[in-house]
């Protein structure tokens, strides 16, 4: 570990400690926004870990998230709560591995379509099971509060950053960057491309499932229509793209402004919320194809060029 890395790590630790104090400020409003930001930070950052280097757009977040929600909803009757997020993580990773094995040999648009269909597939399986067994919506009645959920998500975010940082430094991260640049070259260099991609795809799978498990007590009542809402997958993608996927902190700088934008639109235009959000989606993709990270890098490059001439 170099000196710069140690300094960055210490700064990150301080930042997380400061963030973790938010519930102590006592404002329910800011805590609710904090939970939203923490949730999307976790989802978008883990999403970008896989989709950033490989350029595979995954719309499977809702599928993993729903699996996690159901893990808590079903498990809470039989097991103590603290065992459930890890179990959800394992289930999410296994599901991601299965999906990865089946689909990561597909490229581009085929993969996108498959992941979009996955959420619907899992949802239909659960509905089928409910119909056969006669069970219905599940209740998650606990004493877990918003503050508990916020702390769990913040902890999970720290974990995601550590994992992302470790992967970036590892042989796996190097292999993935090569795959992202040119898969053909990677394969000829002796990289097991399918294996590397499957392994990495398990990270967002596990993280999204854990997030779903942590948030289930917040929703109290879990039903397929809301646990597997496809909107979630799209929101994660748009936030990650707004931030930029080429840096680990990229999604975070997308999540924060987007959450405030979302809140402002929801609060000010109750009758046109969905319409305006759609327009924002379009503008972001059109005007900021490389996200805020790309914008910053371009700005820095301009400054450097000017300095070089001066």
């Amino acid at each position, binding site marked *: 570990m170099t000196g710069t890395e140690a300094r960055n790590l210490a700064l990150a630790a301080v930042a997380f400690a400061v963030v973790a104090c938010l519930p102590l400020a006592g404002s*329910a409003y800011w805590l*609710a926004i904090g939970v939203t930001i923490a949730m999307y930070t976790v989802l978008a950052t883990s999403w970008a870990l896989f989709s950033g280097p490989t350029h595979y757009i995954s719309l499977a977040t809702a599928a993993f998230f729903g699996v996690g929600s159901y893990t808590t909803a079903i498990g809470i009757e039989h097991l103590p709560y603290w065992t459930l997020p890890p179990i959800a993580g394992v289930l999410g990773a296994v599901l991601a591995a299965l999906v990865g094995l089946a689909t990561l040999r597909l490229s581009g648009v085929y993969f996108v379509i498959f992941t979009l269909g996955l959420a619907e597939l899992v949802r239909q399986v659960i509905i089928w099971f409910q119909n056969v067994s*006669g069970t*219905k919506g599940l*209740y998650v009645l606990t004493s877990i509060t918003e503050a508990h959920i916020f702390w769990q998500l913040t902890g999970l975010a720290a974990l995601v950053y550590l994992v992302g940082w470790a992967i970036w430094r590892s042989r796996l991260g190097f292999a993935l960057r090569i795959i992202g640049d040119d898969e053909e070259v990677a394969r000829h260099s002796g990289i097991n491309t399918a294996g590397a991609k499957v392994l990495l795809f398990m990270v967002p799978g596990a993280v999204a499932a854990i997030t779903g498990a942590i948030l289930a007590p917040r*929703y*109290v009542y879990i039903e397929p229509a809301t646990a597997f809402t496809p*909107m979630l997958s799209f929101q994660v993608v748009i936030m990650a793209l707004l931030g930029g996927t080429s840096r680990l902190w990229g999604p975070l700088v997308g999540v924060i402004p987007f959450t405030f934008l979302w*809140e402002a639109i929801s609060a000010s235009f109750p*009758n046109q919320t969905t319409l305006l959000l759609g327009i924002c989606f379009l503008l972001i993709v059109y005007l900021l194809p490389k996200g805020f990270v790309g914008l910053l890098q371009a700005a820095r490059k301009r400054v450097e060029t000017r300095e070089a001439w001066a």
Partner: protein
Amino acid sequence: MQRRTTLKLAAALLTATMLGGSAYAQETIKLGAVAPKTGPLAGGAAVTHWPNIKLWVEEVNGRGGIDVGGTKMMVEVVEYDDQTNPAETIAAVTRLATQDEADFILAPYSTGLNLAAAPIFDRFGYPQITSTASTDRVAELSGQFNDLFFLLGQNSEIVGDAVEILSKLRDAGTIGNKVAMVNVADAFGIELASTAKPIFEAAGFELVYETSYPLGTPDLSPVMKAAKAADPDAFVAWSYPPDTFGLTEQAIIEQLDVGVFYTAVATAFPAFKGRFGAAAEGIMGIGGVNADSEAFQDYAKRHMDATGAAPDYWASGMMYASLQILEQAITGAGTLDRETVTQYIKDNAFETVMGTVEFDDNNNNPSYWTVGQWQGDAFRGVASTGREGVVDVKLKEGWE
């Protein structure tokens, strides 16, 4: 110059007095409303939820506001769209409680969205009078969320009463013993069907045909053809709005010959009668009202005048009743203090368009309509858990 300064000073003084004045005495009651305006449940909310809020606010402000301890206070509503997403419901209710500082918040729409919001209502001590939430765990929920009230009724009673109507007709010898039962494979449909099956069997009915179909199935003719082939005496569908219409349409095409034809959600919609006209006569479904009561007739007329549409014969009246209860509780308690108002709701009975409502120890409304039937121009209640005005059941006689 001199005069302008004086004017400015006067204006500033005036503004200060006005601001100061409004800080002393609150003149309006701020109400929050969160429900779907977009998303899967927007259609249902547009029929049952939003029109009643509009109607009630117009009426209340028309008569000068709500009487709070002798002062009339006008009502102002802050509305948010939760996009049929529980996370957005939570965000919006939190915003209403903390940023808008609403005096009261109206209960959201549907079971899932109400339960997602329940912890927030509970935390800030807002009474949450639900009119569209249906659950079989009332005691447990009201134990955890002290301010949560249920108006709509329980599924076990809704299903039990439907089976009982069939039992009575069979015991009187007017219909036979064979029942065809289908359900939509989605939350409420699954729940009703799984509740109904053991009750039908315990009552000694023979289920000659039983199937489910996915939500959104466009062509229901195979379902109806198979049901007809089983030659049932009664047809029961635990259905949702689109398939309630679809199954009825197919039954007319097949000229299904049964003594009882029952479809669940949306049978009580005025649009159902509008679509099928005379063929709707004798069809049964969830809900019902005392169509002869003056209170309901008057309400239906006002609803029509204010919103341009008739109320449905199930949850609309309940939604309006929840608003009446809130108003009467505020006036009765004589304060905007939420704890006092909540306690008042628990301790008192309320006169509503659906009749008298008095919550039991579990914050549950024990008397509601369970089965209704199209008879003439109205969807009349034929079974209830203790409501007045139950009318006799008629047999379904043909589709003309």
